């Protein structure tokens, strides 16, 4: 039995506000935390982030790797009572292809067809080794919605899915309430839940996701028992909560990779030597310590340890903490005090702290660091749209890293190129490896390519990973079956009496 007890209202204290549940057009963690309990996808990631079927029962890949045929699980119904058919899948893919955020996932797709109600076939233009990785990615997952919603405009999707929970009430800035979907058809291929897939059951009658943006208030609510689960427990509070018998702490060790990337179009970071000097000057231990209050691990990779593509290639450039070398490089580069503008935001305190600490370190190495602090939308917009006014942009890859090698390096490759290389052409050597990484059918070859690409990123200082923070969560002691994951899963969680 998945549920030790059935019933009750599970209350979660959420850190971030969520605007919409339209999973196709929203990359926010907060949205996924809720929406992925409502929606399901054809294919998703398992507990180890490997692609796994969910709404599909089977998948046939043709010899030429151009045709992918999915058979849908029978008996699945949407929350509105309508049985799931391949038409719904096709409609969802249509909508995603039209307005979905991560449309490049479907970049190599030629077309899709629905030979019958239970079959969904995708035809590729050319073979793409990472195709399944792409469509199963959970950053902006291609959730399956009823076909009537194919034309729903961005953010106006009605949240009707096939998941174990259905939406009861959504009051933005306050809470989202889900209730058990009685006609839920569980995926019996696994014994338990794995990632977003597997056997899921709604043990509690309702789940309330409450927005408690104020960290003090959020934790206070856990302590008073107003909420059962909170995300993001501050390190300091962890220590305090240890003695509290009503509270159990949980952790997902590798949750987020923090990094920044330079702007290769803006002086002085257009100069490799200067970028290297900056890289050399940084003490990542200190940055990570400060931004996480001590709860972190260093990570000389764009993948988490234990992941398929994890490699420490290029780690000689990581965390050098060598201001002298930095000064030498600066001299070599003929640096004379040009401002290095660190673009960050206070909306995400860790990014802000990282930038503050980094600026101090740069100053210590004789680099004229300046903070440019904007609100998140503006900062983000600036990093995407502008090639001037900033030298480093700070961000955190929370799910992206977890999605695997190609996904995580995609941002440094054409055409995304968040680091703004000249003429929007990323480094040739890097691109070469990235091509192999995305197309080679051979995993070992892909892994080698990832390692080379990563090394190249380090060498060229196209991005600087700082380290990894865990996801510290805490639950009331009577919460059972809760397993922390990149996003919150409330299936199979039950409340002991």
């Amino acid at each position, binding site marked *: 039995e998945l549920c030790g007890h059935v019933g009750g209202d599970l209350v979660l204290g959420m850190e971030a506000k969520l605007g919409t549940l339209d999973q196709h057009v929203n990359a926010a963690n907060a949205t996924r935390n809720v929406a992925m309990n409502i929606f399901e996808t054809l294919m998703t990631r398992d507990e180890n982030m490997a692609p796994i079927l969910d709404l599909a029962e089977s998948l046939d890949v043709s010899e030429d790797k151009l045709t992918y045929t999915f058979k849908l699980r029978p008996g699945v119904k949407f929350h509105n009572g309508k049985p799931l058919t391949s038409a719904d899948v096709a409609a969802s893919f249509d909508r995603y292809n039209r307005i979905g955020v991560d449309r490049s996932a479907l970049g190599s797709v030629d077309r899709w067809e629905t030979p019958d109600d239970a079959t969904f076939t995708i035809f590729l233009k050319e073979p793409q080794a990472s195709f399944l990785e792409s469509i199963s990615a959970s950053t902006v997952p291609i959730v399956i919605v009823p076909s009537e919603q194919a034309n729903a405009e961005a953010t106006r999707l009605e949240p009707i899915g096939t998941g174990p929970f259905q939406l009861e009430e959504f009051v933005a800035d306050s809470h989202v309430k889900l209730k058990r979907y009685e006609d839920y058809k569980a995926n019996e291929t696994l014994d338990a839940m794995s990632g977003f897939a597997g056997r899921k059951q709604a043990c509690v009658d309702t789940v309330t996701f409450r927005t408690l943006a104020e960290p003090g*208030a959020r934790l206070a609510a856990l302590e008073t028992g107003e909420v059962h689960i909170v995300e993001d427990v501050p390190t300091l509070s962890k220590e305090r909560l240890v003695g509290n018998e009503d509270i159990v702490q949980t952790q997902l060790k590798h949750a987020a990779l923090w990094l920044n990337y330079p702007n290769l179009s803006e002086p002085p970071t257009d100069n490799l030597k200067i970028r290297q000097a900056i890289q050399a000057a940084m003490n990542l231990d200190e940055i990570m310590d400060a931004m996480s209050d001590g709860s972190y691990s260093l990570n000389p990779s764009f993948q988490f340890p234990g992941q398929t593509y994890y490699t420490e290639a290029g780690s000689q450039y990581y965390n050098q903490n060598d201001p002298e070398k930095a000064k030498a490089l600066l001299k070599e580069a003929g640096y004379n005090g040009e401002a290095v503008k660190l673009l960050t935001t206070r909306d995400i305190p860790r990014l802000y702290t990282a930038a503050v600490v980094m600026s101090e370190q740069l100053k210590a190495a004789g680099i004229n660091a300046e903070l440019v602090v904007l609100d998140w939308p503006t900062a983000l917009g600036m990093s995407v749209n502008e090639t001037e006014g900033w030298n480093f942009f700070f961000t955190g890859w929370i799910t992206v890293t977890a999605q695997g090698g190609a996904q995580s390096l995609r941002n440094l490759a054409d055409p995304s190129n968040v680091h703004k290389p000249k003429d929007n052409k990323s480094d040739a050597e890097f691109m070469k490896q990235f091509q192999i990484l995305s197309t080679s059918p051979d995993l070992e070859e892909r892994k080698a390519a990832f390692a080379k690409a990563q090394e190249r990123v380090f060498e060229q200082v196209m991005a600087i990973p700082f380290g990894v923070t865990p996801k510290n969560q805490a639950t009331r002691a009577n919460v059972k079956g809760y397993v922390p994951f990149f996003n919150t899963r409330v299936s199979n969680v039950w409340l002991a009496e």
Partner: protein
Amino acid sequence: MLAYTLRRIAQAVPILLLVSLISFGIMQLVPGDPAAVLAGPNATPDELIKLRQTLGLDKSLLSQIMIFYGNLFQGDLGYSIILGEPVLKVVLERSPISISLALYSLALTVILGLSIGVIAAMKHNRWIDQAAMTFALIGVSVPNFWLGLVMIVLFSVHLGWLPTGGYVPFFEDPAGWFLAATMPALSLAMMQIGLLARLTRSTMLEVLGQDYIRTARAKGASEPRVIIKHAMSNVLIPVVTVLGMILSVLLSGSVIVETIFAVPGIGALLGNAILGRDYPMIQGGLIFVAAVLLILNIVVDVLYAWLDPRVRVQ
């Protein structure tokens, strides 16, 4: 009275138009765009452009304005970009929350502010007066978001008396509403209580110095009678005139208090809308709030006219 009310309403229309123009102007200056917020940091520029198109953000400023006003006159405030719901619907859902909070705050303000002020005036220059005015002064000097934070720690965590925040609809659970709304209302009201107590005290002192109070005393009226019958009716007049202002501040102060106490009111809604660049939401929301404030002000003015026979009887 009716003519006056109608005239005031008519005067409100151009103000609303100005309000909408100003907010439109401000929003056009805002850098960053809602598409970027929705798409997150990993979206490619190409994807952003497409998202912008679907959100109608690629149209020219003028056509956005035209569309906005075109819809406005049909009572349509547009669709929120982030919430994906009609602005009017969201605003109508949220404003009762803020308004009820503001009214609760107002009730606290009026009850506490008036009584503190009256007591201070009656005990003029005595220790009660000093204590009351010190309290009032501290009330006007303490940042309300700070007070909110401190109150959460004190009342929720340490004492466990009140919930840390959230909102309970009044009609579902009045007691729960009361508990949940008390801290936010109090932290909103604190400053206004201080201001009103000071205003009441000084008005009361002024009124007590008036000739007609002396007349009342010369008639042999007892002190309570002098205060209640003769002084209060006059003190209330200036007090009522500031109620509109107080309400406006209470409604607007809710931005930060709602954020801290996780109250899904209009303040939090608009604050987030501004930070999320949700133009239609901001635009529609601001017009709505301004309209509510104007209406409340009209109500206050009518109340004022009703209280003051010099204005009432003409």
